[in-house]
């Protein structure tokens, strides 16, 4: 949180309270309404209607269906692919949460400091995030090609022939192989966010700390990191949720394969709803994704709605 000294004297408490009460009530709702209206109509309502189908055996195409209550959820627990997908999600989340965050933070700190050519560097590190997914899948597909791909060619040139392998073509390495471009493209956002947050830190604190004899490391831990806490929260929360929902990246690079080794909940849901004509079952998977992601975000929401202690 940002420490601030406000020399101006505050108005007498009673008057301020009176004005505050009048300011509340209708006014906040006017601000909230446009966004909420759009949101409810185009997201909440369709989502809730869809989620209803998880209680049915709708195939996603016929005009009729039966209600099967929780049969889909029971089937979920017995589905070996769901287990594999959940495991993949966990691994995926752990890696694509931590690495881009750390990298992004590092880059932001360095780019906020004494470096030349900042605009160019900032642009370079952010650019992958701007690319359409089709390009990322193509480019990395070429890089990973077992015969002529840059990665294997490089390994062979430096004599590490044994390490050259079909990265995307075998169960053991496929998921890891997809995580690399994911990190590559997901580092830009934390970097951006941290940069914006770092800009808001009062440099006077650093000056004062230096005068007091604090080392740069101490300054980092005791001034920078705490000031970045809101940014940390956002990056963590958004990355976490994104990781649970991940779909596009994996779909584009491996299609869930080879076999089912890179299936995640998102791709498995898509397959069931859109390709296997099992919309009911697939929607149940979607519900599970949603519930887990919601559960994980509870601490964040609570922290954000606590009474502000600026």
């Amino acid at each position, binding site marked *: 949180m940002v420490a601030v000294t406000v020399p101006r004297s505050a108005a007498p408490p009673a008057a301020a309270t009176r004005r505050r009460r009048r300011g509340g009530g209708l006014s906040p709702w006017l601000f909230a*309404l446009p966004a909420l209206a759009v949101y409810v*109509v185009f997201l909440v309502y369709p989502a809730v209607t869809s989620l209803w189908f998880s209680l049915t055996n709708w195939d996603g195409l*016929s005009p009729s269906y039966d209600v099967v209550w929780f049969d889909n959820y029971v089937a979920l627990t017995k589905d070996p692919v769901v287990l594999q997908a959940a495991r993949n999600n966990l691994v995926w989340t752990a890696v694509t949460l931590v690495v881009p965050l750390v990298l992004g933070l590092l880059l932001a700190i360095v780019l906020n400091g004494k470096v030349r050519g900042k605009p160019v560097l900032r642009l370079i590190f952010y650019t992958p995030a701007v690319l359409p997914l089709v390009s990322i899948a193509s480019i990395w597909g070429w890089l990973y090609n077992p015969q002529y791909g840059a990665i294997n060619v490089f390994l062979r040139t430096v004599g590490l022939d044994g390490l050259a392998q*079909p*990265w*995307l073509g075998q169960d053991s390495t496929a998921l890891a192989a997809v995580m690399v471009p994911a990190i590559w493209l997901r580092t830009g956002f934390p970097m951006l966010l941290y940069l914006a947050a770092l800009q808001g830190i009062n440099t006077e604190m650093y000056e004062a700390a230096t005068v007091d004899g604090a080392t740069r490391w101490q300054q980092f831990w005791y001034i920078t990191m705490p000031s970045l806490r809101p940014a940390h929260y956002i990056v963590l929360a958004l990355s976490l949720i994104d990781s649970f929902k991940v779909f596009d990246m994996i779909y584009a690079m491996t299609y869930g394969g080879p076999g089912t080794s890179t299936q995640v909940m998102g791709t498995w849901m898509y*397959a069931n709803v859109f390709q296997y*004509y099992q919309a009911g079952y697939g929607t149940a998977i979607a519900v599970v994704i949603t519930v887990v992601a919601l559960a994980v975000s509870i601490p964040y929401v609570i922290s954000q709605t606590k009474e502000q202690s600026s």
Partner: protein
Amino acid sequence: MTSRDISRRLFLGGSASAAALYGLSACTGAGSSGSGGGASAPVSNELRLFTYEDDTTIDLLRATVKKFDAQAGTTTTVDSLPGSGAAVYPDKLRTELLGGKGPDVWRIWGGQIGSPFAKAKQAADLAPYYAKFGWDSTVNANAVAGMTFDGMKAGLPFIAAAMGAWYNKSLFEKAGVSGPPTSYAELEEANDKLVAADITPCGVAGKFGWDIMRLFEYLLETSAGPELHDKLLSGEESWDQPAVVDAFTKFKKWQDRKWIPEGALGLDPSDVEPGYVQGKNAYTITGTWTETQAILESKKPASDFGTFLLPTDHTPARHSGFVEGYMINANSGNRDKAAELLDFIIKPETQKSLQNTSSTVTGAEPDKTKLPLAAKWAEISKTSPFYVVLDQAFPKQQADQYFAVQSDILQGSISPAEAAKKMQGIVSAWVEK
């Protein structure tokens, strides 16, 4: 009035009307069942055709449709999802049908890809039109069977794609392979010679499963023979038997002996399939579209390449094939006009002008001078029946499960015997439903 009051009014007014509008439309439009049932659109002169025609040929289709419009007095819109849009084509089609705004005519693959639409009663029964226009006599009967589900003729097929080996002559020569192999043993020998000459024999890729599958189903036909193969596909015979294990053993052998590209499982078909034209692989397993898409594209002469039926050592010597056709929307108000459009498209002259190299229509064989190799296949197809491509024989879910087995066996995590057992588990579970 202060600016605050005015803006408050604007807010209230704007938000309220917007909410009302959307609320209304949501009420009338949404329903737990798609509005497909019952309410047919009124008869008009407007038709909509939805397809996944490649960009290289879409103009031909549009020109054809224009001609039809001129003589029938209709206005037809043609929407297309070219290229890789074909992968998401069924999703879009499905969404539109559910939303009550489906096309009057749509193109779709046969077999288990098209059957859900028939089962869900979204596709119209075309039997009356078959009778009226006499399609039975002009269209290949096997193809029609590919779009007939539960006895209902749900589609009019216009593509009967035949798949075989397409090879690069100079690479064969370089390896000392004298010509197309005529038996399976000869094919294996040819593969070894190619490997010895440092050439990758068979360019297949596993990214979506269906390309490498073409190799397996050929091996299955070779090991099991036509009758057993068909019974396996329909679930009448168990997959847990020696012939299947033999096929899987051969499958693994192709990879172990490096007869397919290294790391084939992770490769993309669109990168690998044209490889025989580029001199990267000796041959590939594909259909006649490759003549236009790969050979003509490369501007190399067709005489540099050849094609042959993959030898199965059985009689009849079959090849793998699949069907694509048009369906008519069961809820369209313009079914008769749509059928007229289809009849127009299916005429031999139209098929030729559309450059359909795999037409189901007699009299629409490809031009020998322009597309000699595709023409050769038209000849082959006259005597060689086809077995349905595995991923059309099975619904997508089972096909994906097969792809998982395929992946496991190629990576050596299961043995051929285990693979056969797994397949049996998959197929029997499906058949029981």
